[in-house]
Protein backbone atom coordinates (compact mmCIF):
# COMPACT_ATOMS: atom_id res chain seq x y z
CA UNK A 1 0.00 0.00 0.00
CA UNK A 2 2.70 2.48 1.07
CA UNK A 3 4.81 1.77 -2.00
CA UNK A 4 1.85 2.04 -4.32
CA UNK A 5 0.76 5.37 -2.80
CA UNK A 6 4.35 6.63 -2.89
CA UNK A 7 4.58 5.82 -6.58
CA UNK A 8 1.27 7.53 -7.30
CA UNK A 9 2.41 10.66 -5.46
CA UNK A 10 5.61 10.71 -7.52
CA UNK A 11 3.51 10.47 -10.69
CA UNK A 12 1.27 13.32 -9.44
CA UNK A 13 4.39 15.43 -9.06
CA UNK A 14 4.90 14.89 -12.80
CA UNK A 15 1.32 16.17 -13.33
CA UNK A 16 -0.05 12.72 -14.16
CA UNK A 17 -3.81 13.12 -13.73
CA UNK A 18 -4.51 9.44 -14.12
CA UNK A 19 -2.20 8.72 -11.19
CA UNK A 20 -4.06 11.34 -9.18
CA UNK A 21 -7.36 9.62 -9.93
CA UNK A 22 -5.89 6.31 -8.73
CA UNK A 23 -4.44 8.02 -5.67
CA UNK A 24 -7.88 9.39 -4.81
CA UNK A 25 -9.48 5.98 -5.29
CA UNK A 26 -6.87 4.33 -3.08
CA UNK A 27 -6.84 6.84 -0.23
CA UNK A 28 -9.99 8.98 -0.15
CA UNK A 29 -12.12 6.65 1.99
CA UNK A 30 -9.39 6.50 4.64
CA UNK A 31 -8.90 10.27 4.64
CA UNK A 32 -12.63 11.00 4.54
CA UNK A 33 -12.99 8.75 7.59
CA UNK A 34 -10.35 10.83 9.37
CA UNK A 35 -12.01 14.14 8.48
CA UNK A 36 -15.46 12.86 9.38
CA UNK A 37 -14.28 11.53 12.72
CA UNK A 38 -12.70 14.86 13.72
CA UNK A 39 -15.29 17.23 12.24
CA UNK A 40 -18.41 15.09 12.79
CA UNK A 41 -20.25 16.92 10.04
CA UNK A 42 -20.39 15.56 6.55
CA UNK A 43 -20.53 18.91 4.77
CA UNK A 44 -17.44 20.13 6.63
CA UNK A 45 -15.59 16.88 6.04
CA UNK A 46 -16.38 17.03 2.30
CA UNK A 47 -15.09 20.59 2.15
CA UNK A 48 -11.86 19.74 3.97
CA UNK A 49 -11.32 16.62 1.86
CA UNK A 50 -11.68 18.63 -1.32
CA UNK A 51 -9.19 21.29 -0.14
CA UNK A 52 -6.76 18.60 1.02
CA UNK A 53 -6.68 16.77 -2.31
CA UNK A 54 -6.24 19.98 -4.29
CA UNK A 55 -3.24 20.72 -2.04
CA UNK A 56 -1.90 17.21 -2.47
CA UNK A 57 -2.11 17.63 -6.26
CA UNK A 58 -0.45 21.03 -6.23
CA UNK A 59 2.29 20.03 -3.83
CA UNK A 60 2.94 16.39 -4.62
CA UNK A 61 6.47 17.42 -5.63
CA UNK A 62 7.10 18.40 -2.02
CA UNK A 63 6.51 14.89 -0.76
CA UNK A 64 9.71 13.15 0.13
CA UNK A 65 9.48 9.42 0.71
CA UNK A 66 12.45 9.60 3.06
CA UNK A 67 10.60 12.00 5.32
CA UNK A 68 7.44 10.07 6.11
CA UNK A 69 5.21 7.25 4.97
CA UNK A 70 2.83 8.55 2.30
CA UNK A 71 -0.31 7.96 4.38
CA UNK A 72 1.30 9.74 7.35
CA UNK A 73 1.99 12.71 5.11
CA UNK A 74 -1.52 12.81 3.65
CA UNK A 75 -3.18 12.18 7.00
CA UNK A 76 -1.23 15.07 8.51
CA UNK A 77 -2.47 17.37 5.75
CA UNK A 78 -6.09 16.38 6.37
CA UNK A 79 -5.87 16.56 10.18
CA UNK A 80 -4.16 19.92 10.01
CA UNK A 81 -6.94 21.30 7.82
CA UNK A 82 -9.59 19.84 10.13
CA UNK A 83 -7.98 21.46 13.15
CA UNK A 84 -7.67 24.80 11.37
CA UNK A 85 -11.37 24.50 10.56
CA UNK A 86 -12.35 23.68 14.14
CA UNK A 87 -10.16 26.40 15.62
CA UNK A 88 -11.27 29.17 13.30
CA UNK A 89 -12.28 32.20 15.34
CA UNK A 90 -15.95 32.26 14.33
CA UNK A 91 -16.54 28.75 15.60
CA UNK A 92 -14.46 28.40 18.69
CA UNK A 93 -16.60 30.56 20.96
CA UNK A 94 -18.86 27.91 22.38
CA UNK A 95 -20.60 24.60 22.01
CA UNK A 96 -24.16 25.66 22.77
CA UNK A 97 -25.93 22.41 22.09
CA UNK A 98 -23.34 20.31 23.80
CA UNK A 99 -22.79 18.75 20.40
CA UNK A 100 -19.12 18.14 21.10
CA UNK A 101 -19.65 16.35 24.34
CA UNK A 102 -22.40 14.20 22.85
CA UNK A 103 -20.25 13.25 19.89
CA UNK A 104 -17.31 12.48 22.13
CA UNK A 105 -19.46 10.06 24.10
CA UNK A 106 -20.14 8.17 20.90
CA UNK A 107 -16.43 7.60 20.51
CA UNK A 108 -16.84 4.34 18.65
CA UNK A 109 -15.46 0.88 19.26
CA UNK A 110 -12.15 0.53 21.07
CA UNK A 111 -9.61 2.45 19.00
CA UNK A 112 -6.76 0.68 20.80
CA UNK A 113 -7.95 -2.67 19.50
CA UNK A 114 -8.25 -1.30 15.99
CA UNK A 115 -4.76 0.20 16.23
CA UNK A 116 -3.27 -3.10 17.34
CA UNK A 117 -4.53 -4.61 14.05
CA UNK A 118 -2.42 -2.23 12.00
CA UNK A 119 1.26 -3.00 11.55
CA UNK A 120 2.19 0.68 11.32
CA UNK A 121 0.35 1.54 14.49
CA UNK A 122 1.13 -1.48 16.65
CA UNK A 123 4.03 0.14 18.52
CA UNK A 124 1.91 3.23 19.07
CA UNK A 125 -1.01 1.15 20.34
CA UNK A 126 1.32 -0.67 22.69
CA UNK A 127 2.71 2.60 24.08
CA UNK A 128 -0.75 4.14 24.40
CA UNK A 129 -1.79 1.06 26.35
CA UNK A 130 0.97 1.72 28.88
CA UNK A 131 -0.17 5.28 29.67
CA UNK A 132 -2.22 6.05 32.74
CA UNK A 133 -5.90 5.80 31.90
CA UNK A 134 -6.57 9.53 32.20
CA UNK A 135 -3.61 10.47 30.05
CA UNK A 136 -4.63 7.95 27.41
CA UNK A 137 -8.24 9.09 27.45
CA UNK A 138 -7.28 12.76 27.06
CA UNK A 139 -4.85 12.08 24.19
CA UNK A 140 -7.22 9.80 22.31
CA UNK A 141 -10.16 12.15 22.72
CA UNK A 142 -8.02 14.99 21.42
CA UNK A 143 -6.73 13.01 18.46
CA UNK A 144 -9.97 11.41 17.39
CA UNK A 145 -12.42 14.19 18.23
CA UNK A 146 -10.26 17.25 17.65
CA UNK A 147 -10.92 18.61 21.12
CA UNK A 148 -8.91 21.57 22.40
CA UNK A 149 -7.55 21.75 25.96
CA UNK A 150 -10.59 23.65 27.16
CA UNK A 151 -13.05 21.37 25.34
CA UNK A 152 -11.31 18.38 26.90
CA UNK A 153 -11.60 19.99 30.33
CA UNK A 154 -15.33 20.59 29.85
CA UNK A 155 -15.91 17.10 28.55
CA UNK A 156 -13.92 15.38 31.29
CA UNK A 157 -15.27 17.78 33.94
CA UNK A 158 -11.80 18.60 35.17
CA UNK A 159 -9.92 21.87 35.69
CA UNK A 160 -8.11 23.11 32.60
CA UNK A 161 -4.70 22.85 34.29
CA UNK A 162 -5.27 19.22 35.22
CA UNK A 163 -6.20 18.27 31.67
CA UNK A 164 -3.21 20.16 30.25
CA UNK A 165 -0.95 18.20 32.60
CA UNK A 166 -2.47 14.88 31.51
CA UNK A 167 -1.92 15.72 27.85
CA UNK A 168 1.61 17.00 28.38
CA UNK A 169 2.74 14.08 30.55
CA UNK A 170 0.98 11.58 28.30
CA UNK A 171 2.74 12.92 25.19
CA UNK A 172 6.07 12.88 27.02
CA UNK A 173 5.63 9.26 28.04
CA UNK A 174 4.46 8.30 24.58
CA UNK A 175 7.61 9.76 23.07
CA UNK A 176 9.83 8.04 25.63
CA UNK A 177 8.06 4.73 24.97
CA UNK A 178 8.31 5.03 21.16
CA UNK A 179 11.95 6.12 21.23
CA UNK A 180 13.42 4.53 24.33
CA UNK A 181 17.01 4.96 23.13
CA UNK A 182 16.82 8.75 23.30
Amino acid sequence: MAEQVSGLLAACARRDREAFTLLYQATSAKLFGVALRILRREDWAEEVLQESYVSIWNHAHDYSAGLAAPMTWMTSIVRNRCLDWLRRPSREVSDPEGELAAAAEAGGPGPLDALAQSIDARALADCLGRLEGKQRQAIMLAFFQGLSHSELAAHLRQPLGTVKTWVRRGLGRLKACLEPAQ
Partner: protein
Amino acid sequence: MNYRDKPALREHLAGEYVLGTLSGAARARFKGWMIADAALRRTVDEWQRRLAPMAAAIAPVTPPRRVWLAIAARIAAPSSSGPAHKGLWENLVFWRTTGLAASGVAAALLAAVVWVAPERPQPAPAPQIVRVPADVVPPSYVAVLADPMTRKPVLMVAAARKSDQLLVKRLDDSIMVADKSLELWALPAGQAPVSLGVVAPENKYLLKLTAVADQSLGEIPQLALSLEPKGGSPSGVPTGPVLYTGPCIKYW
Protein backbone atom coordinates in the same frame (compact mmCIF):
# COMPACT_ATOMS: atom_id res chain seq x y z
CA MET B 1 6.86 34.44 25.71
CA ASN B 2 10.39 33.42 24.88
CA TYR B 3 10.20 29.87 23.63
CA ARG B 4 13.48 29.69 21.70
CA ASP B 5 15.90 28.61 24.40
CA LYS B 6 13.39 26.34 26.12
CA PRO B 7 13.67 22.94 24.46
CA ALA B 8 11.14 21.30 26.78
CA LEU B 9 8.53 23.96 26.02
CA ARG B 10 9.16 23.69 22.28
CA GLU B 11 8.72 19.93 22.52
CA HIS B 12 5.46 20.24 24.50
CA LEU B 13 3.96 22.84 22.20
CA ALA B 14 4.93 20.90 19.05
CA GLY B 15 3.26 17.77 20.42
CA GLU B 16 0.14 19.68 21.41
CA TYR B 17 0.02 21.44 18.05
CA VAL B 18 0.06 18.09 16.23
CA LEU B 19 -2.34 16.45 18.66
CA GLY B 20 -4.59 19.48 18.14
CA THR B 21 -5.28 20.65 21.68
CA LEU B 22 -3.99 24.21 21.27
CA SER B 23 -6.72 26.86 21.26
CA GLY B 24 -7.21 28.96 18.13
CA ALA B 25 -5.03 31.83 19.38
CA ALA B 26 -2.25 29.55 20.64
CA ARG B 27 -2.37 27.59 17.39
CA ALA B 28 -2.05 30.76 15.31
CA ARG B 29 0.83 31.98 17.48
CA PHE B 30 2.62 28.66 17.17
CA LYS B 31 2.24 28.75 13.39
CA GLY B 32 3.82 32.20 13.38
CA TRP B 33 6.85 30.75 15.16
CA MET B 34 7.08 27.80 12.78
CA ILE B 35 7.36 30.07 9.77
CA ALA B 36 10.74 31.39 10.85
CA ASP B 37 12.05 28.39 12.76
CA ALA B 38 13.17 25.34 10.77
CA ALA B 39 14.19 23.42 13.90
CA LEU B 40 10.70 23.86 15.31
CA ARG B 41 9.23 22.55 12.05
CA ARG B 42 11.42 19.46 12.36
CA THR B 43 10.15 18.90 15.89
CA VAL B 44 6.60 19.13 14.53
CA ASP B 45 7.46 16.66 11.75
CA GLU B 46 8.63 14.18 14.36
CA TRP B 47 5.34 14.50 16.22
CA GLN B 48 3.38 14.03 12.99
CA ARG B 49 5.27 10.80 12.41
CA ARG B 50 4.63 9.66 15.98
CA LEU B 51 0.92 10.44 16.15
CA ALA B 52 -0.43 10.16 12.59
CA PRO B 53 -0.43 6.31 12.69
CA MET B 54 -3.22 6.60 15.28
CA ALA B 55 -5.49 7.36 12.32
CA ALA B 56 -5.16 3.68 11.39
CA ALA B 57 -7.87 3.03 13.99
CA ILE B 58 -10.39 5.11 12.04
CA ALA B 59 -12.70 3.18 9.75
CA PRO B 60 -12.71 4.29 6.11
CA VAL B 61 -15.84 5.98 4.78
CA THR B 62 -16.31 6.36 1.04
CA PRO B 63 -16.91 10.04 0.27
CA PRO B 64 -19.82 11.02 -1.99
CA ARG B 65 -19.00 11.25 -5.69
CA ARG B 66 -19.54 15.04 -5.71
CA VAL B 67 -16.30 15.50 -3.77
CA TRP B 68 -14.25 13.92 -6.55
CA LEU B 69 -16.14 15.89 -9.21
CA ALA B 70 -15.33 19.13 -7.40
CA ILE B 71 -11.65 18.18 -7.03
CA ALA B 72 -11.39 17.09 -10.67
CA ALA B 73 -12.92 20.37 -11.81
CA ARG B 74 -10.47 22.36 -9.72
CA ILE B 75 -7.34 20.60 -10.90
CA ALA B 76 -8.43 20.77 -14.52
CA ALA B 77 -7.35 24.41 -14.57
CA PRO B 78 -6.08 25.73 -17.93
CA SER B 79 -2.41 25.82 -16.88
CA SER B 80 -1.62 22.14 -16.83
CA SER B 81 2.14 22.49 -17.06
CA GLY B 82 2.65 23.14 -13.40
CA PRO B 83 0.96 24.07 -10.17
CA ALA B 84 -1.52 26.83 -10.87
CA HIS B 85 -1.08 30.16 -9.14
CA LYS B 86 -3.31 29.55 -6.19
CA GLY B 87 -2.90 32.84 -4.42
CA LEU B 88 -3.96 32.99 -0.89
CA TRP B 89 -4.18 29.66 0.78
CA GLU B 90 -2.05 27.37 -1.33
CA ASN B 91 1.11 28.86 -0.05
CA LEU B 92 4.24 28.62 1.87
CA VAL B 93 2.70 28.94 5.27
CA PHE B 94 0.45 25.99 4.60
CA TRP B 95 3.42 23.72 4.07
CA ARG B 96 5.46 25.23 6.80
CA THR B 97 2.66 24.67 9.26
CA THR B 98 1.54 21.26 8.05
CA GLY B 99 4.93 19.76 8.64
CA LEU B 100 6.46 16.93 6.63
CA ALA B 101 7.20 19.16 3.68
CA ALA B 102 10.33 21.12 3.15
CA SER B 103 12.20 20.43 -0.06
CA GLY B 104 9.95 22.37 -2.42
CA VAL B 105 10.06 25.46 -0.26
CA ALA B 106 13.84 25.41 -0.26
CA ALA B 107 13.77 25.04 -4.03
CA ALA B 108 11.46 28.03 -4.37
CA LEU B 109 13.72 30.17 -2.22
CA LEU B 110 16.71 29.16 -4.34
CA ALA B 111 14.74 30.08 -7.42
CA ALA B 112 14.43 33.61 -6.08
CA VAL B 113 18.21 33.80 -5.79
CA VAL B 114 18.58 32.56 -9.33
CA TRP B 115 16.26 35.28 -10.54
CA VAL B 116 18.56 37.93 -9.10
CA ALA B 117 21.59 36.50 -10.87
CA PRO B 118 22.08 37.30 -14.56
CA GLU B 119 21.30 34.51 -16.97
CA ARG B 120 24.29 32.35 -17.69
CA PRO B 121 24.95 32.00 -21.42
CA GLN B 122 25.65 28.56 -22.85
CA PRO B 123 28.40 27.70 -23.36
CA ALA B 124 29.99 29.89 -20.71
CA PRO B 125 32.42 32.45 -22.15
CA ALA B 126 35.93 32.71 -20.80
CA PRO B 127 35.83 34.61 -17.51
CA GLN B 128 36.66 38.28 -17.75
CA ILE B 129 38.02 39.97 -14.68
CA VAL B 130 36.73 43.52 -14.52
CA ARG B 131 37.39 45.93 -11.72
CA VAL B 132 34.00 47.33 -10.70
CA PRO B 133 34.13 51.08 -10.16
CA ALA B 134 33.14 51.89 -6.58
CA ASP B 135 30.39 54.33 -7.55
CA VAL B 136 28.32 52.20 -9.92
CA VAL B 137 25.87 51.04 -7.26
CA PRO B 138 26.24 52.20 -3.67
CA PRO B 139 26.70 49.43 -1.08
CA SER B 140 23.14 48.27 -0.51
CA TYR B 141 20.89 45.60 0.84
CA VAL B 142 18.65 44.13 -1.84
CA ALA B 143 15.80 41.63 -1.64
CA VAL B 144 13.43 40.34 -4.28
CA LEU B 145 10.35 38.62 -2.92
CA ALA B 146 8.75 35.97 -5.11
CA ASP B 147 5.76 33.68 -5.12
CA PRO B 148 7.15 30.31 -4.03
CA MET B 149 4.72 28.48 -6.29
CA THR B 150 5.13 30.38 -9.55
CA ARG B 151 8.57 31.83 -8.73
CA LYS B 152 7.32 35.12 -10.08
CA PRO B 153 8.97 38.15 -8.43
CA VAL B 154 6.37 40.43 -6.88
CA LEU B 155 8.19 42.99 -4.78
CA MET B 156 11.70 44.37 -4.58
CA VAL B 157 13.25 46.33 -1.74
CA ALA B 158 16.62 48.01 -1.40
CA ALA B 159 18.36 50.26 1.11
CA ALA B 160 21.81 51.82 1.19
CA ARG B 161 23.97 50.56 4.06
CA LYS B 162 23.89 53.75 6.09
CA SER B 163 20.32 54.79 5.25
CA ASP B 164 17.14 54.15 7.19
CA GLN B 165 15.05 54.56 4.02
CA LEU B 166 13.94 51.30 2.42
CA LEU B 167 12.94 51.66 -1.21
CA VAL B 168 9.96 49.43 -1.91
CA LYS B 169 8.93 48.72 -5.49
CA ARG B 170 5.98 46.53 -6.32
CA LEU B 171 6.63 44.36 -9.38
CA ASP B 172 3.17 42.83 -9.54
CA ASP B 173 0.11 44.92 -8.75
CA SER B 174 -2.13 41.88 -8.48
CA ILE B 175 -0.67 41.01 -5.09
CA MET B 176 -2.75 43.67 -3.35
CA VAL B 177 -5.89 42.26 -1.69
CA ALA B 178 -8.96 44.39 -0.98
CA ASP B 179 -9.66 44.97 2.73
CA LYS B 180 -6.37 43.28 3.71
CA SER B 181 -2.81 44.47 4.13
CA LEU B 182 0.45 42.87 3.10
CA GLU B 183 3.05 43.16 5.83
CA LEU B 184 6.78 42.99 5.22
CA TRP B 185 8.82 40.96 7.71
CA ALA B 186 12.51 40.51 8.37
CA LEU B 187 13.20 36.86 9.23
CA PRO B 188 16.32 36.68 11.39
CA ALA B 189 17.82 33.18 11.60
CA GLY B 190 16.42 31.37 14.61
CA GLN B 191 14.40 34.31 15.91
CA ALA B 192 10.88 35.60 15.61
CA PRO B 193 9.98 37.69 12.54
CA VAL B 194 10.37 41.47 12.89
CA SER B 195 7.85 43.70 11.12
CA LEU B 196 9.27 46.25 8.68
CA GLY B 197 5.87 47.76 7.93
CA VAL B 198 2.79 47.37 5.81
CA VAL B 199 3.00 47.57 2.01
CA ALA B 200 1.60 50.92 0.85
CA PRO B 201 -0.81 51.26 -2.08
CA GLU B 202 1.80 53.27 -4.03
CA ASN B 203 3.72 51.35 -6.64
CA LYS B 204 7.07 52.72 -5.45
CA TYR B 205 7.78 54.45 -2.17
CA LEU B 206 10.18 54.83 0.73
CA LEU B 207 9.53 52.99 3.96
CA LYS B 208 11.28 54.23 7.10
CA LEU B 209 13.30 51.58 8.93
CA THR B 210 13.63 51.72 12.71
CA ALA B 211 17.43 51.82 12.31
CA VAL B 212 19.91 52.21 9.44
CA ALA B 213 19.99 49.24 7.09
CA ASP B 214 23.30 47.93 8.48
CA GLN B 215 21.51 47.39 11.77
CA SER B 216 18.02 46.46 10.66
CA LEU B 217 18.97 44.23 7.70
CA GLY B 218 22.61 43.29 8.42
CA GLU B 219 21.79 39.91 9.97
CA ILE B 220 18.63 39.16 8.02
CA PRO B 221 18.93 36.28 5.53
CA GLN B 222 15.33 36.43 4.37
CA LEU B 223 12.29 38.69 4.02
CA ALA B 224 8.66 37.67 3.79
CA LEU B 225 5.26 39.18 3.00
CA SER B 226 2.25 37.95 4.95
CA LEU B 227 -1.43 38.63 4.46
CA GLU B 228 -2.80 40.50 7.45
CA PRO B 229 -5.94 42.34 8.53
CA LYS B 230 -6.16 45.91 7.20
CA GLY B 231 -3.43 47.95 8.86
CA GLY B 232 -1.18 45.02 9.69
CA SER B 233 -0.82 42.24 12.23
CA PRO B 234 -2.48 43.15 15.53
CA SER B 235 -0.15 40.91 17.54
CA GLY B 236 3.33 41.76 16.28
CA VAL B 237 3.82 38.34 14.70
CA PRO B 238 2.49 37.19 11.31
CA THR B 239 -1.08 36.02 11.80
CA GLY B 240 -2.02 35.30 8.20
CA PRO B 241 -0.39 33.15 5.53
CA VAL B 242 3.10 34.03 4.29
CA LEU B 243 2.55 34.55 0.58
CA TYR B 244 5.94 35.69 -0.71
CA THR B 245 9.52 35.35 0.42
CA GLY B 246 12.97 36.20 -0.82
CA PRO B 247 16.60 36.25 0.28
CA CYS B 248 18.04 39.50 1.56
CA ILE B 249 21.45 40.08 -0.01
CA LYS B 250 24.31 42.44 0.78
CA TYR B 251 25.55 44.07 -2.40
CA TRP B 252 29.01 45.53 -2.09
